[in-house]
């Protein structure tokens, strides 16, 4: 029952700022379902990999939930801590670039001056057959 609620809350919670209110009734529920993990892994192309990683994520959510203890009634939300600062404008001059060699050093695999990535945004394979993705 709570798994479904969490799933929905998670999905809408990821959707944007307006969803914050729906998250309120999440309080205290630290557990994450396998489906949520799978969805996140697909979105982020990240492999949580282990039970510890999931536990760490659950702890992080529980930690963030403490924000809700703060009473923000009647407080106008800020855009940013810099919202009353001037946004600096740069002149349209070319001053950077030409450093492909340096940048490509960060890439595990390179073809000519290209970075090499896995093909497209391929779906992660179902849990349990992940080797094929990681080593291809």
């Amino acid at each position, binding site marked *: 029952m709570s798994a479904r609620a969490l799933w929905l809350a998670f*999905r809408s919670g*990821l*959707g*944007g*700022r307006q969803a914050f209110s729906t998250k309120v009734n999440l309080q205290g529920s630290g557990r994450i379902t396998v489906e949520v993990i799978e969805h996140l892994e*697909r*979105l*982020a*192309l990240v492999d949580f990999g282990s039970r510890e990683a999931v536990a760490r994520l659950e702890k992080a959510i529980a930690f963030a939930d403490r924000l809700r203890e703060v009473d923000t009634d009647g407080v106008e939300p800020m*855009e*940013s*801590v*810099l*919202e*009353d*600062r*001037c*946004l*600096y*404008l*740069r*002149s*349209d*001059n*070319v*001053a*950077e*670039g*030409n*450093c*492909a060699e340096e*940048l*490509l050093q*960060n890439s595990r*695999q390179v*073809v*000519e*001056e*290209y*970075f*090499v*990535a*896995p*093909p*497209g*945004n*391929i*779906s992660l394979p179902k849990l349990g057959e992940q080797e094929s993705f990681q080593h*291809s």
Partner: protein
Amino acid sequence: MAAPMLRRVGLGRLWGFAWVDGGSGHRRGSPNGSTSSRRREQSSVAQQPLHTAQKPRKGGHKWAAVVGLEIHAQISSNSKLFSGSQVSFMAPPNSLVSFFDASLPGTLPVLNRRCVEAAVMTGLALNCHINKKSLFDRKHYFYSDLPAGYQITQQRLPIAANGSLTYGVFMGNKQSRMATKTVRIRQIQLEQDSGKSLHDDLRSQTLIDLNRAGVGLLEVVLEPDLCCGEEAAAVIKELQLILQALGTSQANMAEGQLRVDANISVHHPGEPLGVRTEVKNLNSIRFLAKAIDHEIQRQINELESGGEILNETRSFDCKLGCTVPMRDKEGKQDYRFMPEPNLPPLVLYDSASLPAGTESQQVINIDQIRDALPELPSATRERLVRRYGMLPEHSFTLLNEVGLLQFFQNVMKETRAEPKKVTSWVLNTLLGYLKHHNLAVSESPVTSSALAELLDLLDSKAISSAAAKQVFEELWKGEAKSAAQVVSEKQLELMQDREALEQLCQSTMEGHPQVVTDMKSGNPRAINKLIGLVRKATLNRADPAEIKDILERLSS
């Protein structure tokens, strides 16, 4: 050995694939989460059962199509939106990439003033309200050519909103009547472009070039006010001309500087809107019109045969001439919009609100930009119509071909011929030859001066218009001869010798007594036949009016 091979393959494919993952962050689903777009999405989803429940009713009701466009225009600037690396179309891979563009830790965005000005100019030219305060947001999605994992865009409060674009569209099949229509513009937002991916299926890998990553884009979102491919094509053409007139984008579709996505649905008039699909991969104006019309027809066929329309993304296959579903791996994309923490709000000023004592480089004055706007295509056309008595549709054609207006104006400067004659020669003869030989105006073997000289000869009645056509054909061969040289070499001058002409007329009449009898009995076609015969005898060198005059005198 293999390396240079791959480079060529890679570049060749770059063209093909620029479109597949062309847009930044609009690969899947709606690229902007603006409230109205959300509303549209909801309503289309809510209406889904309506259509699926409907029985097919062939010919029962008419269908109406609703088309909305989202356009990404690359801003023409020296450097990128938030970094100082160069913007250039063809450059060695990853040579135009700064540490920020590659999303190295610790780098921060620094906004390019030129990009802001380009957005304001475009907003003003499209009759938008310019927001004096606009905000930047992060839109998250994971793709290997977006190294940060998010794109900086303007989701909540864009730089410009609520505008309109007036365009002309031909009525009916005959290209003779123009109708003026208006499409509303929902918003214009500044955002970053993504890098490019080259998919190497053979080795199952993707090559990433970040040269385009971080280039400034104007995303122009139109309200769904259009109803067919032709209207959409006319809107995009007009937008392209406006962007080029402003210089805010080169708007060359083939080079990916202007990319269009279309949202399409069909419904019965008076009933709620249907479920919409999004068509991507539209890389020319012609394909845009074709793809939209095809998708409208596909949806109608689908619904009439009892099927349903899925809210999906389709791409146009220009070889097959139809739209095909794009593999949507994740279903609904979740962009997790959040305010961009590294950029304070963008504040613009007008002359009234200009702060005193601020560095002028740091202040953008909307009024100043408005005053400096160049002449827009609609004004240019009006000027042509007013000044030269040209038909509106002719003014459209002059502007729609790159360089044709300049050519026309150059001819006008150098010739004494009437504007109407010049218009006709430029639009019919010159453009006809160019189209036939598949050439751009800049490649025309006939220069504007040569045409001006030719038209002067015609205007002073030194040659007949049939001879002028012959001269043009000679000039087209590009042998660097002037019109006058061609005329004298080919002996195309009008016969000035009245006596010789009279003799030719006399002998023609004697050779064709039956036609002369017909003419005398009042058959109006007979004299034309005689005129034709005499002209042939003069090798098109005589003025038909003069021949007619002589013939009438001789036969009376």
